[in-house]
């Protein structure tokens, strides 16, 4: 990742502070200058398409994620895939699972669907509740602030991963995907809330907010029109930076066997299953791991760039 050479300033380029109109354009121009943003956007886009079009893609590959193919594995070698690199062939694009012969391409694609759906929905829950709680605590202050801050401290004192694992293992007959999203979402909001609370506190007595108040705006209007846009930048940057953690958490839960139930595939679960075959069929381990690694990496790079552009002073301190 070499940084692109700084573009020569065109003579008509205005100084940044008064640069052409809307702040959105400024942000986009800043982002476009970074090579890592392009790479990460391409990777994220690829996986999102993969997740969204999973049934279509696996149909294109010719295998459903749960279909067994005994002809692709060698029954005399403990069910190791036939052929090189874990059975990669024209028939099975990414090879097959040992023993069962299920198509890895179909499983990885459907796994992307489960992993990303859970991670992104959990992130949405975290961001919405966190922003609401943070704005309320920062703007209204007093008892609201005290109560919400105590609640944040309490939530942060929970051993979240241990607790998530325990909760997932106790609950039996519920929709696993829904439960997992809720459980992961439950513990993330204090982080966002703290960022937003701090930002709101610093915005609350700016002149333009006071002006709106004097002008007769009610609290709802001030919050949505004046405060919310002010906290949006840090929140967007923070959101992108917590997505990798969400993906990793989902993978860890599935890895430990308390996530989605087989035969529904997810990356973490595939990696867990592949561990016992790492010696005989390393590709089985490599493929879901590479997907997980690339997605997490891409979101981290994008989050870094967004933070540099949108929240240069780092409101998380």
């Amino acid at each position, binding site marked *: *990742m070499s940084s692109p050479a700084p573009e020569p300033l065109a003579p008509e380029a205005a100084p940044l502070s008064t640069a052409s109109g809307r702040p959105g354009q400024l942000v986009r121009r800043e982002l476009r200058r970074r090579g890592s943003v392009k790479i990460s956007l391409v990777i994220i886009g690829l996986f999102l398409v993969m997740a969204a079009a999973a049934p279509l893609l696996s149909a294109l590959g010719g295998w459903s994620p749960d279909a067994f193919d005994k002809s692709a594995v060698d029954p005399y070698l403990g069910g190791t895939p036939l052929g090189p690199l874990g059975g990669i062939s024209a028939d099975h694009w990414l090879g097959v699972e040992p023993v069962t012969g299920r198509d890895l391409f179909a499983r990885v694609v459907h796994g992307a669907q489960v992993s990303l759906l859970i991670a992104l929905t959990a992130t949405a829950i975290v961001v919405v509740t966190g922003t609401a709680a943070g704005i309320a605590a920062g703007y209204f202050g007093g008892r609201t602030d005290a109560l919400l801050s105590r609640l944040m*401290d*309490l939530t*942060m*004192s*929970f*051993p*979240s*991963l*241990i*607790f998530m*694992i*325990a*909760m997932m*293992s*106790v*609950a*039996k007959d519920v929709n696993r995907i829904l439960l997992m999203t809720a459980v992961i979402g439950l513990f993330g909001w204090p982080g966002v809330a703290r960022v937003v609370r701090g930002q709101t506190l610093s915005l609350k007595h700016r002149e333009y907010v006071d002006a709106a108040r004097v002008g007769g705006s009610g609290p709802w209007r001030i919050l949505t029109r004046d405060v919310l846009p002010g906290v949006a930048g840090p929140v967007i940057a923070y959101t992108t930076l917590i997505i*990798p953690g969400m993906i*990793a958490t989902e*993978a*860890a839960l599935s*890895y*430990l*066997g*308390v996530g989605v139930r087989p035969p529904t595939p997810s990356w973490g679960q595939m*990696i*867990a299953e592949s*561990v016992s075959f*790492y*010696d005989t069929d*390393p590709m089985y*381990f490599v493929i879901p*791991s590479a997907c*997980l*690694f690339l997605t*997490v*990496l891409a979101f*981290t*790079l994008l989050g*870094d760039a967004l933070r540099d552009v949108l929240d240069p002073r*780092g409101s998380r*301190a």
Partner: protein
Amino acid sequence: MIRYTLRRLVAVVGVLIAVAAVTFTIFYVLPSDPAAAACGKSCSTERLEAIRAHMGLDEPVWRQFWDFVSGIFTGRTMGSGRYTLHCHFPCLGYSYENSEAVWDLLVDRLPVSASLALGAAVLWLVLGLSAGVVAALRKDTLVDRALMVGAVGAASLPVYFTSMMLIYGLIRVAGLLPYPRYVSFADDPAHWASNLLLPWLALALLYAAMYARQSRSSMIETMAEPYIRTARAKGLPRRTVVVKHGLRAGMTPLLTLFGMDLGGLLAGAVITESLFGLPGIGRLFYGALTTGDQPVILGVTLLAATFIVVANLAVDLLYAVVDPRVRL
């Protein structure tokens, strides 16, 4: 300072009771019947009732919770008649699986998890902070770029991936290290370290990467402060400026992070311990999950919460020592 500490300690106890209450409610109110599980498949109704009574499951939930909490402070007697058990202070109940006291199980396993956590913490602090500081001091050079690309990459690797790679590379292919087998530090410090080296590395890599990123940005910010320029301008050698003025202020923000991570390390230990077969609390927890051993699950959750709040308290107190601007 003393008043502050006392006030915080009271808050710590409050938080722990709240954590216990929430955990307790979820695990005991959710529709699962530990008595039936303990009793087995062919179970008569009387036997089931006896087990229920023994476990205290026939009592209302608030009563069970009260017994549980007071048991922690005073010990308690469980069951009646032939099945009476006295659970000594601090009582966390008995494991459904092997009828051992949960407290004893935890104490038994603690040295393994503590060895794993502390060794990994030392390793990631050394690796992460030195990489971060070097990158910050050589900002925008090739060294900085290489370190940061490495850090972003390493931060994206899940613990189990790193572990498998290390097992495969260092044990299977290179044969450099033995497959980890826990040896007590008191018995043989050298073997203790050589056996734990791999789990330490696996657990530390992710954190080292995060700390490298954090310490770099924190150090860059500090080195741009006016007082650093003053220190340089009055002719202090660069070394003194970096070590005495820069590091102290630059590393303080990482203390908070360190407290939280150290407190939360027990969760990372669940995966690491089960992959490397170390008999620590993480594996105890994982085992309890698969058998539905609720007292053990509750005990580990409480212990983990205790670690987190105590680590946070320790960090807040340390701040007063490290950062002269903080007055408690």
